[in-house]
């Protein structure tokens, strides 16, 4: 079984990344590459779906910090959604909801982009 995988889908100008497995200092490199590819292609409206992610360490959190400013400077954002309670607790403990929009449903995140 793969430790970590990403599947992508597009919804208009919005890119949705579905994360699965374990996001740590080893696997976070894959997510960095994926986000770099999207930003290089001018895709700045990104939703990350955590539904199938079972584990995250600070290395994983760091990936979102590394790219959020670039997306927002280009009228985009990285919106996060469908986290398990275990994953959300890590984000929440460190105060990430101060900076990041986190939604229970992917559909809500999509609507927020549409409304902006």
């Amino acid at each position, binding site marked *: 079984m793969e430790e970590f995988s990403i599947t992508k889908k597009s919804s208009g100008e919005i890119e949705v990344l579905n994360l699965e497995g374990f996001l*740590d200092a080893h696997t976070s490199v894959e997510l960095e590459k994926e986000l770099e590819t999207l930003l290089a292609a001018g895709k700045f409206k990104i939703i990350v779906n955590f539904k199938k992610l079972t584990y995250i360490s600070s290395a994983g959190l760091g990936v979102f910090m590394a790219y959020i400013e670039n997306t927002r400077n280009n009228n985009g954002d990285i919106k996060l959604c469908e986290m398990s309670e275990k994953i959300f607790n890590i984000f929440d403990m460190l105060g990430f909801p101060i900076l990041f929009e986190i939604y229970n449903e992917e559909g809500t995140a999509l609507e927020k982009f549409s409304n902006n």
Partner: protein
Amino acid sequence: MSDNEKILIASSTKNLSKVRKFVEESAEHSGLDQATVNQIVLSVDEACTNIIKHAHKYNETNTIEIEIEAGYNQFKITFNYKSGNTFDPNEAQNPDMVEYFKNYKVGGLGIPIMKKFMSKIIAQHKNPDVNSLILIKSIDKPSSLPSGTKLFRGTILFR
């Protein structure tokens, strides 16, 4: 039940999953609740990552020995590693998270996580260049094991 009390890994992030599995199984066997197990596993991941990154500079020829002692009142994890570059998490100040987010900082969150979730952190420097980092989780609810019980024996080497 596994019969290992310690593992020896090459100092590489590719071995983090093995370390997490080793610690998770041990913590679960010792009767800790799932939330506490999760806190210990994440803290161990952060500690191991710091050693790989800062002490060993991603040089995979180095090794890290991880030993677990599951006792009546505490769950103790010891990392033994050779390096001239030691670090003591107790000396690092937690970042001001409002400033952290305001300035879009990256990194530096592993130690705050360890401090939040573990009861005590001890860094020991032994000559000439042997270091130990010890994470201790105090256990409020007595486990079913008698005092001083060690769960595992043996050594596994992951390369």
